[in-house]
């Protein structure tokens, strides 16, 4: 899954600022280097800019200033087709799921594979297996509009990981599921990470952060700080790297 042609950093951000329209910057002077195979939590209060930061990572938005490089490509100088190819390596779990409600759970999960032009037999095999794993085999043909919040979230997660992405970005992925499912999903993310996938999970859950000792990207006052577990352990609190 990993590719030695890529630089060590999956995502590089230099002096990145982002603003909407003529408003003030919601993120300022962001500097970030995400190493391949790393696992980070992204934290910050509501409105701190977590979704904006993630949207730059999954190439839905360009920075208002500064440079963002994903898989070694500066997004400001990458053409649309090349951006599409980069997006195929990124799995995203959206906070609002962004499922296509007129499609079944199966068709939603199959979307990234079909976009790549994968053989339909392989699509069927992979999607059925994954939907069984997230315990949605009974709802395989159900339109997602008929599913509960937790079920939708599992469909969204299945869609994000179906293509075995090199970078997985998740915005509150365990927010709508019970503890058992949340634990199972986190194990899935950890397993993917062990296989080489770089993972960033935006969360408000302190339990998640303490249960899994991964570094934390914390957004505060429009800027980004990075906290490592060792700092937290040594100081009994949070230490700036």
């Amino acid at each position, binding site marked *: 899954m990993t590719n030695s042609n890529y630089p060590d950093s999956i995502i590089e951000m230099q002096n990145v600022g982002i603003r909407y329209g003529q408003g003030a910057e919601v993120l300022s002077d962001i500097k970030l280097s995400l190493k391949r195979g790393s696992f980070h939590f992204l934290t910050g209060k509501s409105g701190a800019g977590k979704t904006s930061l993630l949207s730059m990572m999954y190439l839905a938005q360009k920075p208002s200033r500064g440079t963002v490089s994903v898989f070694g490509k500066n997004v400001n100088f990458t053409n649309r087709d090349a951006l599409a190819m980069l997006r*195929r390596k990124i799995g995203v779990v959206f906070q609002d799921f962004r499922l296509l409600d007129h499609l079944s759970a199966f068709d939603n999960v199959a979307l990234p594979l079909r976009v790549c032009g994968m053989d339909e037999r392989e699509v069927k095999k992979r999607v059925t297996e994954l939907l069984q794993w997230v315990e949605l085999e009974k709802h395989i043909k159900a339109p997602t509009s008929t599913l509960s919040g937790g079920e939708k979230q599992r469909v969204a997660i299945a869609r994000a990981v179906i293509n075995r992405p090199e970078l997985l970005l998740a915005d509150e992925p365990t927010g709508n599921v019970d503890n058992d499912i949340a634990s199972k999903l986190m194990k899935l993310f950890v397993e993917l990470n062990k296989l080489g996938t770089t993972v960033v999970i935006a969360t408000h859950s302190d339990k998640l952060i303490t249960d899994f000792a991964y570094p934390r990207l914390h957004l505060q006052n429009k800027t980004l700080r990075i906290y490592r577990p060792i700092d937290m352990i040594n100081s009994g609190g949070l230490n700036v790297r």
Partner: protein
Amino acid sequence: MSDKNRTMSARKKELPLQDDSSNLFLQVMISIAVFLFGVTLAGVLSINSMLATWNNSILGSLTVQVMPANDVNEKNAQAQTNEQLNKAVELLKNKPEVDKVTPLSDEQLQKLIQPWLGDGVDIKDLPMPRLIDVKLKKGADVDFMQWAEELAQAAPLASLDNHKLWLNKLIKFADGLKILALTILVLVVLITSGAIFYCTQTSLGLHKYIIEILHLMGAKDTYVAQQYAKRTAWLGFLGGVFGLLLAIPTIFIIANLAKQIEGGIISEARLSLADWSVILSLPLFSMVIAMGTAYYTVKKTLEKFM
């Protein structure tokens, strides 16, 4: 169902274009456009065939007119006119460029003036000139001025008419009609393309949410554009077939009306097999225009997305 078909049918469902409210409007619009296009095109092709017939008649024939002799004695006058007619016929028959010389009979003359003077007139009561129809050999190079001089010497009452003057005026008129019709054809194509452009843009706005998700999953613009192109091509083809089904009877009705103008120049207008094959291929033409316009619109519009 094969894997490829299954993938195609799954793709169809991603963007529910078949439910777009503008589909019916587009189909009706394309039907009307193809109807207008078909009828106008039939007109242009008919004018073309008419021009070709007229051109051939200019190149291949001429008419000699022998004015009636001026004599108070009717029998003398008729004899002098016939003498002049025979001299002119004799002169023309000896020309190597001439294929056939036919003096028109009284019955033929009667038929010629019938559209203007009706049935009840006897041409023997009128000072009618006698006409000689002259068919030239293929590729004959004729010095008309020389012939006119020779004819004036042999038969002073005879004059040569190679049809050029009045036919040139008719050809100019027909050319004008053709330009007008071609302008209408271009306008019909532009208006239809414009309608497809705006309907596609509206649909893109309507399905923006789905398209954004497809993009985030790694879909290229062509992936979306192909779905629009296929859907619009089908609408273009269906609309084209309906329009053609309306246009064909209309063309026949107009052709029948034209035929009823007996002896008129319009009856020279005919559609050949090649002309009909062009008209019958209009649904394919509308399909290609619709498909191309939709594809171009999607590609251009999506360029504004990230």
